[in-house]
């Protein structure tokens, strides 16, 4: 069948070259080949948001992105959020509010929150709930997550683009 495809991409600011099969998803390439296991496989069909990441600055479900489609594009994952100075304000607020239990959905929620705050730096509670409709959490009941995102918004001003 088909040969492996050569892909050049930028992941968390680092230029990366890789070989993939056409049938691999971006999520599979990240987790299985590049060992970036921050993005999680939940439903694997676009319902749960556990595999969320940023592709050219837009939030996407990486389980539904075909790997060869990322050639020449820019990817940001949860692994790129903390800096040498410390955690990203969203990560810090998720800790302070205990907005996670098992943690599987957390990277997806944090990426979704980052994408929302880039567009809407002063969200209402309704905005946060509406925006995170594509993220499922089976532990927390969402309340702590919503509060963590609302609390992080002021600290994120100008930093979440």
């Amino acid at each position, binding site marked *: 069948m088909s040969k492996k495809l050569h892909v050049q991409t930028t992941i968390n600011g680092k230029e990366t070259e890789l070989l993939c099969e056409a*049938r691999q998803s971006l999520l599979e390439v990240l987790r299985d080949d590049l060992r970036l296991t921050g993005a999680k496989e939940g439903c694997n069909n*676009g319902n749960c948001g556990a595999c969320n990441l940023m592709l050219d600055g837009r939030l996407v479900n990486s389980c*539904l992105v*075909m790997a*060869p489609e990322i050639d020449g594009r820019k990817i940001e994952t949860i692994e790129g959020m903390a800096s040498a100075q410390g955690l990203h304000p969203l990560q810090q607020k998720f800790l302070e509010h205990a907005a996670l239990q098992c943690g599987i959905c957390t990277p997806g929620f944090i990426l979704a929150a980052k994408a929302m705050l880039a567009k809407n730096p002063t969200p209402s509670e309704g905005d946060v709930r509406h925006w995170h*409709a*594509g993220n499922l959490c089976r532990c927390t009941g969402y309340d702590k997550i919503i509060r963590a995102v609302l609390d992080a918004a002021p600290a994120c001003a100008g930093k979440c683009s």
Partner: protein
Amino acid sequence: MKNFSYYRPATVEQAVSLLENRFGNTELLGGGTDLHDLQKEYVSQPARVVSLGGIAQLQTVQVAEKSVTIGAGRTLASISEHPQLRQLFPALATAAGEIAGPQLRNMATLGGNLCQRNRCWYFRDEHSNCLLKSGSTCFALDGENKYHSVFTQGSRCVAVTPSTIGPVLIALGASVEVQNAAGKRLVEIGRFFKAPNANGEREHALASNDVVVAVQIPVQGLTNAHYEVRQKLSSDWPIVQAAVSFQGGRNGEKATDVKIVLGQVAPVPHVAQAAMRAIENQSITEQTAAAAGQAATQGAKPLSQNAYKLKLIEVAVKRALLLASGARPYWLA
């Protein structure tokens, strides 16, 4: 998932040249939200996938005096956020902005929305050999059919049309720019959708070597709106959808040239003729809108589990008309 050869043409002409004269072996890739899912479920197993992501022409939006042209590769998010589209066609911007959640709207394209496969659970189940695969039976007819058609329109497959953009575009009188090896042509959106009834058929009337290039919407000053009934506020498929457009009809003025198109109730978008007649040349009030809603159910033949949709049709039509007329949405607190 079965592996496939991946192509990324730079022009529509190149994409067309890669297609075949039957569906199934070669598939077009828009945002991937439908195709990749179908491949994982082994419902679609193409040997070749032609990505449209590298074709810049499909990304343009042109707003001219008489018509607006939206490239088929535009994402639903970019349509829902486009200031001029929001102003001219609130029905379109709202419908695009209510599909799924933000991630999927960032990926899913306009062309993909129009050409996506239906969501019937028998069709989507690898092991159910339904009418649209190589079987001879529509399992929904005697099976679990609460989300299926109430206007079956004589179709043997009773899955509902999945596109919520389709009914809106019919209400707005749009046309679809289609390209194949012979050149470009315009397909009136009312003739775009077709009920599939056998293996190898699709939910649209295009051929397997056609590519949807753009959608053209005439600018006619139509008042328009869209309303959909869902079980959840967001990230959910609608159960019933109503798209409406008309001239006038605001601030007690009479509505003329009324179009009312229903989604999620039939194998193709359903033009509710009786409802259109009921409200034509009337001013839009809760009473006239409710009467149009009742008329919209005329001719319905529900299946064993979906008679409840008739009430939802009444509600959706009434609310879409009221929204378009500028009335305050009384159903929101």
